[in-house]
């Protein structure tokens, strides 16, 4: 078997630790430059582009797969407000669902990850939902 075992549904509900991310002006600018975002507030590094939460990378214990075989199927973000330079965001990611489907590329595994970010006072800042397809 050169294919790794399919992800077990036992992983549903498993969470990362809460990780603190500090939103740095330089990181915002670098991100805005990479996407060639012309929004003045983003180019100055004051306000983060809407998809900036993708930079908050976390691992979930026991959840491993071959990155090269992952397709990003869908992504959602909901915002209470934009992220700004100097923000401290406490983030956690959780396995919301895992299911298996037969598609045109053969057996595929759908992995749904839910992320949430709160401020120092515990107030929600954003949430995200990732659909990853493992083939």
């Amino acid at each position, binding site marked *: 078997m050169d294919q790794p075992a399919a992800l077990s549904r036992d992983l549903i509900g498993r969470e990362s630790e809460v990780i603190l991310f500090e939103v740095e002006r330089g990181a915002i600018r670098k991100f805005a430059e*990479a996407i060639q975002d012309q929004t003045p507030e983003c180019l100055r590094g004051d306000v983060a582009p809407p998809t900036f939460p993708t930079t908050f990378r976390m691992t979930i214990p026991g959840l491993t797969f071959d990155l090269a075989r992952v397709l990003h199927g869908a992504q959602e973000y909901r915002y209470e407000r934009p992220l700004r330079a100097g923000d401290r965001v406490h983030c956690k990611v959780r396995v919301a669902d895992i299911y298996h489907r037969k598609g045109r590329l053969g057996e595929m595994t759908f992995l749904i990850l839910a992320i949430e970010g709160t401020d120092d006072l515990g107030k929600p800042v954003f949430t995200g939902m990732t659909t990853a397809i493992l083939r």
Partner: protein
Amino acid sequence: MIGPVLATRHDLASGSVLPDLRKSPITKLQLVKYAGASGDFNLIHTDDETARTVGLDGVIAHGMLSMAFLGEYLCWLAGPESIRRLSVRFNEMVRPGDTLTCRGRVKERTTGTAGSRLQLEVWAENQRAERVTVGDAEVQMT
């Protein structure tokens, strides 16, 4: 750019077509920069050899890059403070050399005490008019 495009568009109603935002062609250098800036180091986006081992012709763009374009589109339309939600599906692969244009349409406009809330249909299409990344969004205009 002088303020958000929609700030002065009080005529917007359901079905209104939004102005386009055309992006520069995607380059391999941009994918390397995006990998570094985003922390997505999946080599299928930056290394042709790795891309070929999983059956691709060569590197493909990060789906999140096209979503980022739509994020910029919303900032341009409504201003970064106004964005409440952006939700997308990645339908087609995007390759270096592709030119994406962000387009959109108003699905619904509701007016309340805090201003107007717009439900938008947004998508990024390539130079062959294929909708590569498709989604919807919600913005709050004060």
